[in-house]
């Protein structure tokens, strides 16, 4: 198990050390300069979509890499965040004029198809953008808090926790699909058009959203780094490696776990909301077990101990998915399978591990000078 040597010591007291700085700068260069210059709006929008999954992967690095809590249900929070925003956008798109063809104009089209004749009460607050923005983060965090409290207080952990999160993801999917009159069912909430009058479907809007998305992601990365550098981050690692000792030292282990789980949920929710904005719809296919596990794979490919690695991993896997499936529509899943096998066999610590093993020694040789032990990036 890879550790965080610099974190354990934290002796230099800097927010980012030299290699971390280099990694962050490289990522920023890619996201804010290279991709926008190199790609047409359509491809840029695709990368924007990939980056929304990176929010989840960064949250997973904190929960799983640092805290040792493997959640196989991050799709729950991604979905809740995405659905909250989709509800607002759908209400905005469902003006009485735009829905005049329905039996009940002024309600979302899927409600009309399901013989619902009035907007349900719990949809009403989503007319307000302020409420929606709060709800995007608050609803998933509250939900994560409830799950976390129910489990960590009872000292449910490890595999059992993973299985329960999976079960909850499955339950939520079934609930959303079953209550199609209120949620849009399998189809999801589609045909979203404007955000407070701003058409989100145009190429310009998509480019703006891409940069907003990138900025938010770096915000989350900074927050994640802050947590890792803090005393809290060190307690998390201690918990992961020897939970009992931390408990016996007088720490309230459950509270730390709940906190980091909620933080991961908040990141995932922001990703979900940005996903809805950039893709233009939300559907239950992001809530269930399969997408949740996929998100863990992104994190594993990147290296579960590295927040920057998680972003790289997400980009690599999704880019490969798009490229393989465009080139070989009937065989692409074998390509993806080969990629994952390669990750496990050749670089078990993910991209971050590769970087650490092969790239960092090069830097060290270029600039031979005594330095603190390097972190896992």
């Amino acid at each position, binding site marked *: 198990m890879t550790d965080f040597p610099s974190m354990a010591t934290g002796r230099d007291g800097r927010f980012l050390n030299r290699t971390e700085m280099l990694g962050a700068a490289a990522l920023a260069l890619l996201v804010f300069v290279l991709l926008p210059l190199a790609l047409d709006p359509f491809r840029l929008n695709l990368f924007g979509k990939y980056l929304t999954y990176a929010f989840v992967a960064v949250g997973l690095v904190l929960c799983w890499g640092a805290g040792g809590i493997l959640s196989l249900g991050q799709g729950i929070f991604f979905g809740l965040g995405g659905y909250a925003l989709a509800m607002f956008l759908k209400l905005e798109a469902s003006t009485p004029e735009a829905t005049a063809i329905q039996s009940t104009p002024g309600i979302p089209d899927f409600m009309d198809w399901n013989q619902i004749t009035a907007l349900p009460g719990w949809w009403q607050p989503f007319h307000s953008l302020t409420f929606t923005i709060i709800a995007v983060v608050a609803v998933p965090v509250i939900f994560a808090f409830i799950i976390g409290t129910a489990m960590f207080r009872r000292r449910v952990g490890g595999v059992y926790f993973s299985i329960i999160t999976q079960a909850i993801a499955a339950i939520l999917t079934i609930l959303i699909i079953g209550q199609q009159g209120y949620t849009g069912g*399998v*189809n999801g909430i589609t045909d979203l058009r404007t955000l407070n009058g701003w058409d989100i479907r145009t190429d310009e809007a998509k480019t703006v959203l891409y940069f907003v998305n990138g900025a938010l992601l770096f915000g989350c990365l900074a927050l994640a780094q802050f947590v890792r550098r803090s005393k809290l981050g060190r307690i998390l690692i201690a918990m992961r490696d020897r939970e009992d000792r931390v408990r016996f030292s007088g720490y309230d282990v459950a509270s730390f776990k709940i906190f980091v789980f909620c933080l991961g949920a908040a990141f995932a929710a922001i990703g979900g909301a940005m996903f809805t904005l950039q893709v233009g719809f939300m559907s239950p296919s992001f809530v269930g077990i399969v997408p949740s596990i996929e998100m863990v794979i992104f994190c594993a490919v990147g290296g579960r101990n590295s927040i920057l690695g998680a972003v790289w991993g997400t980009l690599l896997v999704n880019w490969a998915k798009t490229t393989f*499936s465009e080139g070989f529509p009937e065989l692409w899943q074998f390509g993806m399978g080969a990629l994952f096998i390669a990750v496990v066999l050749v670089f078990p610590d993910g991209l971050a591990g590769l970087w650490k093993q092969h790239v960092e020694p090069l830097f060290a040789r270029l600039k031979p000078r005594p330095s603190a032990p390097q972190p896992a990036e």
Partner: protein
Amino acid sequence: MTEKTPKPTFAAPSRRAFLTASAALSASLFLPKGLRAQDFPTAAVNTTGLAVTDTEVTVGILHSVTGTMSISETGSVQAEKLAIEQINKMGGVLGRQIKFVQEDGASDWPTFAEKARKLLVDNKVASVMGCWTSASRKAVLPVFEQYNGMLYYPTFYEGLEQSPNVIYTGQEATQQIIAGLDWVTKTKGAKSFYLLGSDYIWPRTSNKIARKHIEKLGLEVVGEEYYPLGHTQFNSVINKIKLKKPDVIYAIVVGGSNVAFYKQLKAAGIDMTKEKPLLLTISVTEDEILGIGGENIDGAYACMKYFQSLDNPNNVDFVKAFKEMYGNDIVIGDVTQAAYLGPWLWKAAVEKAGSFDIDKIKEASPGIELPTAPEGYVKVHENHHLWSKTRVGHAQADGQYKVVFETSDLVEPDPFPEGYQ
């Protein structure tokens, strides 16, 4: 019942429909056979930058070839490729050979949206044949409207939609339901119905229309139930059916659930060949019977617009060509045939418009006739759906349907049926 000379007759043609029909007729009279590309300079037939060259035109095929829907969608992909190959052999469209870019929707609706955008923005395809589930169509619809693409959508579906950017080559719900219910009440004397289906928009909307129609006829619905997709335990509903003794079980179960449903019906002692109760479905084509097993569904009735066993010259040729291309064991269901119509309808629209421009195709599409359709004869309505006949098939133990009824006229598509909503 056979159909030797397809004769277009319309239930109630409006004045406008008549005008477009006559316009279509006159346009087709002026079109020479064997169009040559040099008569249609690329700059003139493609003013919006689609992927059209002097020799080629690119279209997209967008279906799931991986994931749970691939079983259903593979037939559509095969039919579309067959149609494209046949069109190319005949000289292509406006003298241009059709090339296709195939993308995989992977049974995942957001992937459909992504690939649709890719086809329209990157490949600049002149049209797309694709989608199967309603969910995938709903996901790509905004994309087609935004980038002004043309989608040929093959599946029978719930209606309640009419986009200028889509040609619906399958039936909307009323075309599949009403004639079938009339048939079962008239010839079988059915008085009571038990509705059941998988729980999503298509079965629910279809059963809503069925219920309204049954009630209009003054008959009775004795039960209505829905089960999640993939559900495999139908024993409780089978017991209820035995208790309520309806004359007709009206089943809209989809996908893998079908296998469990029909096997359990048989195991519970409901012998469909005795028709007590009679089973009428709108969701089981020859493709599904492959999974269910002919012996498990022997005696049921299905209401579709196409059956592989249709006896008309068009269909004999179509089935032969299909088997030559994909092997003798292949079966052809209703949707596969509808998918086959897509490239042909697009070709007809392009030739009528004399242009590949999407806006001109939209305008040219209503009124297009296809007398060579395997199902007989179809015609595009102004609402972009097809006029087509409704047929009832009787399932045989060999997995085929025997056609026992067809409407004498083409049924008008009515995606927003008044009085049924």
